[in-house]
Structures are given as C-alpha cells and as structure tokens.
C-alpha cells in the first residue's frame, strides 16, 4: 500500500558533511558501480562514450558558489544529493499502483519493479529529484540506501553501509538510524547543526546536511601567519637574508 507507515521502527539515513566534502564524485561513482549490479540492476547508460552521454544515477554532486550578501569572500560548496528517505514521502502516496512504498521496519523508500507502470508521477512529486526513470526497463528507480548491502551478511561487517558512505575518501558521509537519539548520526547531526533540505515542502526528509564551518576571510588569512613567509625582512632567518643580499648584487 502507498499509505505511509504511521511510525517506522528505524529511520535509516545519511549525514552529509558539507564542510568535508571535496566534490570528488567518488560516492556517485561507487553508487553507480554497486547499484548497476545490485537490487536495481542494471542502471542504463545512453551513449556512454559519445558526446551526449546520459544515464541513471542515484547520487549526484552539485557544486555551488555561495556569495555573501555583504560582498565578502565567496565559498565553494560541493553538494552531494541522493534520496532523503522522507518520513512524509510524497513519491509514495502519489503512486497509483502501490509499487512505491516506505518500509515499516527501517523507513527506506523503495520501488517494486514488478508493479511499477512507469507513469513518472513519483518523480514529479519528489521536490528533490531523487527519482530516476529507466527508459530501457520502463520503470522508476531510486536510491535504495543500498538495502542489498546494509543487511548483507555475506559482506564483512564494515562494508555493511551504503556504497557512497564506504567509498568517501574524506569521511564526509555517515550512515545510521535517526530514530535513535543516541546513534552516532543523531549525535553528529545535533552537535553540528544538521539540517533538512527544503523543509517548506513538508516531506520531513530523514537525511541531514551539516553546514560548512565558518572560515577566515582571505584578508584574515594573509594577516595571521597562514600567509607566505615574507622575504628579506627582519623576521627572515640570517641565511635567507644573506642569500637575498648576495643574489640581489
């Protein structure tokens, strides 16, 4: 049924630390690699080596420039986005067939490929663009939170996390249960002011984003030691000053 569960036993989701993410796209690549062989396999690639490549990806990294209103230094923020596994997931309730569903046990939102009619309405209903249409199969696909990894006892315990989390070289992604206030992700999100995207869309997303930490301005950095060592003033070493003199002859 497309009615949402009143309560899920767990609220599995991701924390994405925008302060750490370096925008390397490794999470997207590993997501594609895992999922094109997993629960939703295959993920189509159209014209993969041509000029107009496109395909189904469950995770994409957008890079935003944030320009302060007061004219200060701009910041670059790399912004990975995948399904947020919303508590009030509109993609589930609009589904006319019941193919779209939210799991009562862990809150993961999935699509049943055998009953999806490919009407695409769920992709219209999702404010975040988490749904991806598979033209070859004629059905909708989406991030499964790697449901085929996280409970997979044939994998070593440390691999039982979503592919994007296990591959992030910077440690910008964490996975866990937001339903448990004492879980690592709940504590991390609380400590760093984790927030939900577009709360005004009333979807109650589970995933949380951690804001970039404040940074020194370019001017402050130049003043305070992080700048380049000045050449040939009194603070330079004896050897450096002597070399500077010789070479200036």
């Amino acid at each position: 049924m497309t009615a949402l569960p009143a309560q899920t036993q767990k609220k599995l989701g991701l924390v994405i630390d925008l302060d750490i993410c370096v925008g390397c796209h490794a999470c997207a690549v590993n997501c594609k690699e895992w999922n094109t062989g997993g629960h939703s396999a295959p993920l189509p690639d159209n014209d993969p080596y041509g000029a107009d490549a496109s395909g189904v990806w469950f995770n994409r990294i957008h890079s935003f420039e944030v320009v302060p209103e007061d004219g200060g230094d701009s910041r670059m923020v790399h912004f990975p986005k995948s399904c947020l596994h919303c508590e009030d997931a509109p993609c589930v309730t609009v589904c006319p067939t019941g193919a779209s569903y939210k799991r009562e046990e862990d809150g993961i939102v999935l699509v049943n490929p055998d009953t999806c009619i490919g009407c695409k309405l769920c992709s219209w209903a999702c404010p975040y663009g988490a749904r991806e249409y598979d033209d070859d199969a004629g059905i909708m696909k989406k991030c499964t939170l790697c449901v085929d990894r996280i409970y997979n006892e044939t994998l070593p315990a440390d691999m039982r996390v979503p592919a994007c989390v296990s591959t992030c070289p910077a440690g910008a992604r964490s996975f866990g249960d937001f339903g448990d206030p004492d879980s690592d992700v709940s504590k991390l999100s609380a400590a760093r002011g984790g927030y939900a995207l577009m709360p005004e869309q009333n979807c109650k997303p589970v995933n949380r984003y951690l804001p970039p930490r404040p940074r020194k301005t370019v001017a402050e950095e130049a003043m305070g030691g992080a700048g380049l060592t000045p050449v040939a003033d009194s603070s330079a070493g004896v050897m450096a000053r002597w070399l500077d003199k010789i070479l200036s002859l």
Partner: protein
Amino acid sequence: MHPAKSVIFFTTASGAGYGVLILFILMDIAGLIPAGWHVTLISLGVALGLISAGLLSSTAHLGHPERAWRAMSQWRTSWLSREGLFALITFLPVLIYGAGRLVYPDMTTPWQPVVAALSVALALITVYCTAMIYASLRPIPAWSNGWTPVCYLILSLSSGAVLLNALSFFLGFASVFLILVSVVLLLAGLIVKIMYWQSIALASPRSTAESATGLGDMGKVKLFEAPHQGDNYLMTEMGFRIARKHAARLKRLVILWGFVFPIIAILLTRYSDGAITIGLLTISVLTAAIGLIAERYLFFAEAKHSVTLYYGESAV
C-alpha cells in the same frame, strides 16, 4: 515541466468529453433534449469517444501500459488512482442512462433521473480528480494551488459546451439557451484562466536555491558546476524551458483562439444560416480546440519544479 503529448491530449479530450456528457444530461433532465435515438447515440458517442480516446492515450506515456490496471488500487492516497477508478466507474451509470434513453426516450421511469444525476456527479468528480493529480504536487507551485481544479472544471464544461452547441445544430436541439450557456462558460473560462495566470505570477516563491541547499545563511547560492555536462532525466522531464520563453505569445494565443474566437463564432450563428452556420460552428470548435491545447501545453511547460533549483534556477 515537460509537456507530454499524450497527457495534453488526455486532459483536453476527456475534459471536453466529460463536459459534453455533463451538459447533455443536465439539459436532458431539464427536458431540453429531443427524444430521437440518434440524438442519444451521437451525443453520448461523441462524449464517450473523447473520454475513452483520452484515457487510452494517457496510457501511452506509461513505461508499462499493460500494467495500467494496477493503477486503480491505491485510491486511498493517490489522486491518479482515484482518477482512473472514477473514470471507470462513471461509465456504468452513463451506459445505463444511455441505454435507458434509447428505450424510454422521455425519461418516464423513476430511475432514469437518478442514474442521470449519478452520471453527472461522477463525471464532475472524475474531472476534479484529474485536476487534483496536478494540484496535489507541492514541488510545482504553479499547479498546487486552488485555481488548478477551478480551471480544469470550468474548461471541461466550456469545451464541452462548444462541442454540444455545435452538435445541437445537427441534432435539432439548437437553442438560444445553449448558445448563452456556451458563451457564459467560455467567458468564465477566460476569467479563471486570467486569474490563474495572475495568481501564479504574483505568488512569492515557495522554494529557493537557498532553501534547496540550506546554505542561505552564508549568502546567495549559485550553481557553479552541474553534476555532469550532459542532460539527465530530471532536467529534461522537470526542467523544460522552451514554452516559458514564449509564454506571453502563448497566452495571447490561448485568450484569442481558446475564448474570443469561439465566442464570436458562436454568437454570429444567431445571424446566419445554412452553410455559413456550419462554417461558424466548425470555426468555434476548431479555434476552441487549438486554444485549449495551447492552454494545456502552457500549463505544463510554464510550471517550474523545485528540482530545477539544483540545476541553476534561483526560485520556484
């Protein structure tokens, strides 16, 4: 939003079909439709033909049309499911009403008005469900507002009236009353459409690039680099932009062809006869159809979806 041809045809054709159906039955209850079996067959045939063609075409954009029957199952939560279900249920009283009208053309049995009223009610509910599919989508503010169902209901009735008015001349129930009904409904359609456009133009944005990223506290958010150089499904389906560029011209086209031309053509039939009347009726139907298709195309294409905020749009 990408304007799928099948969905544009579906919403306009079945909308007009339900409009014909509703107005025909209401006029029949009021005793304004003559008895003849050909009147029943042609009028209901046109209505049900348009409805069925629309419903069939709506399955054309599905990835798995053969599974379309499953779409009836989730009426508890899904307006699309409700729409499919009510569309199907409506056929039952309408067919009984039509069969009854063939046997008892003067509506002499006590059950005929009941079935007729039920048909009208279910047809109205079906059109309302169609509108609510769009009106319930919060990521698309141009659709999720109170004007959407109002426009769908009125335009269904006005397009139905134009068609029924044209049919009335051939089936022998042309009347000043039906001409007036058509003109009033067309004027009502024009007014609600203009008010709809006004309201979406004046509405403050529901979501912004700042709320989509949560980075608004730091400053203005601009897309620096998209995830990839090519297009993806989200961008082609939700990020359709061609019509927005021509929105002003399309609106003029809708106002003139969809409403003004049919009104003039219908009014002129009061002062014409013979071939000229047939010509005017043809013009009223054709211009109304072109205007309505342009209206629906614009309704889809002009609407912005919040996912575009991740692809360079600044407010939705």
